[in-house]
């Protein structure tokens, strides 16, 4: 018996349902343990605290502390992209779930979309906690003239960042222990290149580092949010950042889709999609 082919509308609905289901699992899984939630808000405060004390020690103005708090909150998103998007197929394969995703009658992109939505919502809760706790503990000033624009830039940053996460997820798909090590490797170097913990608006960061950092969407988003939330800037100070973020998204999504198809096909040919304990 042949299965009836689905209309475009039915196919879209199926994929949206799959994305919602994957998002729900992620939201439920990440928020059922209050200890983890508290730790994920409190832990970045330790690093942020160290940098704020360092800034005070060498006589920087308190706005540098505000920049570090925003950087610390954005780092939470990067960590989420690395460990819960990029490495996710690796975890799923280790736990025996990957084959179930592969035989499900939905696009793998919808599973990734669900992961991204769930992950970004979860991390948004934690990032908000980090910012509020950071402001409360370190008493740093913000100068927010256009909250709506900050919201737009923040959203564009997340979309671009998670598009990069989708691309990494595809590339990490066949990794064994490399997944763990590569995710580890992409932490501090990206914090450095994106200027997460040092305020790039001083304009003293060497060009080579700025150029390398511009390959990471978080760099644009972080700088734009700092200009708006600390420097009191408006659209004229961040329009280039907005174009860069939109361009990142438009480039990364199709590449991620192609990479996912390629890696899946390669995994099937080499028989590595169900391989565990590599």
């Amino acid at each position, binding site marked *: 018996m042949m299965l009836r082919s689905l209309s475009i509308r039915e196919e879209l609905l199926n994929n949206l349902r799959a994305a919602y289901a994957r998002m729900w699992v992620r939201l439920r899984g990440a928020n059922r343990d209050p200890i983890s939630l508290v730790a994920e808000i409190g*832990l970045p405060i330790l690093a942020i*605290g*160290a940098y704020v004390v360092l800034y005070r020690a*060498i006589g920087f103005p308190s706005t540098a502390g505000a920049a570090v708090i925003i950087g610390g909150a954005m780092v939470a998103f990067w960590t989420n992209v690395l460990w819960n998007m990029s490495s996710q197929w690796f975890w799923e394969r280790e736990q025996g779930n990957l084959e179930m995703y592969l035989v499900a009658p939905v696009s793998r992109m919808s599973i990734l979309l669900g992961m991204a939505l769930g992950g970004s919502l979860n991390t948004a809760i934690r990032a908000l906690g980090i910012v509020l706790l950071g402001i409360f503990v370190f008493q740093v000033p913000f100068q927010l003239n256009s909250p709506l624009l900050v919201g737009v830039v923040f959203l564009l940053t997340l979309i671009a960042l998670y598009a990069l996460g989708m691309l990494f997820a595809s590339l990490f798909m066949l990794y064994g222990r490399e997944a763990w090590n590569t995710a*580890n490797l992409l932490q501090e170097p990206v*914090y*450095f290149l994106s200027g997460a913990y*040092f305020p790039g608006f001083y304009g*003293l960061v060497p060009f080579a580092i700025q150029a390398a950092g511009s390959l990471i969407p978080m760099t644009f988003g972080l700088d734009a949010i700092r200009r708006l939330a600390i420097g009191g800037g408006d659209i004229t100070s961040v329009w280039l950042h907005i174009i860069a973020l939109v361009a990142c998204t438009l480039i990364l999504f199709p590449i991620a889709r192609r990479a996912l198809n390629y890696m899946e096909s390669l995994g099937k040919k080499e028989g590595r999609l169900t391989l565990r304990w590599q």
Partner: protein
Amino acid sequence: MAVADFVKSARESFRVGWKIESNWTDPVLFATYQVIRPLASLLIVAFIVIIGASVGAAANSAFYSRYLAWLIVGNAFYAFVLQIMLGMAILVHVDRTRYEVLKNIYISPGTLHPYVIGRGLVSVVNGAVSVILTLLFSVAIFNGLLHMNIPLNLLGVNLLMLFPAVILGIISLLAIGYMLCAVNIVSNRMEFILGDSVSGIFFLLGGVIFPIALLPSYVQPISNVLPITFLLNTVRESFGLLPTGDYITDLAYLALTTLIAVIVGIAVFRLAEQRAKKLGLFDRKSEY
């Protein structure tokens, strides 16, 4: 005989751990991975100081180059903390849940103790590689490439002062790692939090990137009971970055805090072992 068995088990555990951690790639790539993370951490704080010097935030250039040397050494040796805490915090989870071998190790002769020590020593070796490469790269970047004349002479280090401090520091960190393993034996939700939490606390309170005198006064007593504080003090004294007159006192405090950490570590581990045996936790599956 018992000691010989312990050493043999620890050695075999070290071999297994080393293969798990290193044989997924070639040695050059492995060494690159070991150095990039600590080097990037160092570059973050170094750039903060360099930017501070450029905008003339606080003091003169001599202050900044001396501070940079102080910071490079602290950050480089912090690699031991990161490697040991992260490695030992995840060990029980990986062996129990991922490879499902913890129960086999437990029922084999020799108990878990030499196994944990052997695996911890792999982190020590990784940490040592990171420390050495970070120091070499720092000198190459800041003095070689950027011509900053940072007062950091790697050939002038007093090894007689450095080695006792590093050995005691490693023992204390292994003892704290032992506690993290113990917590993970009886819990299945802390494995991804514990290592980061403890290393984060040490980063903030241990005098890694700024002197503990800059912390609020009510926090400083905590810094003064952490072995990492005295480890970094003694290491900086052996590099000639702090007055050497305090070395013996700092080393004595390091020895004392290490002894306390070892006693507490063994006690906590034994308690966890008994509880896990009673509740059948050695083969608990938690990833589903």
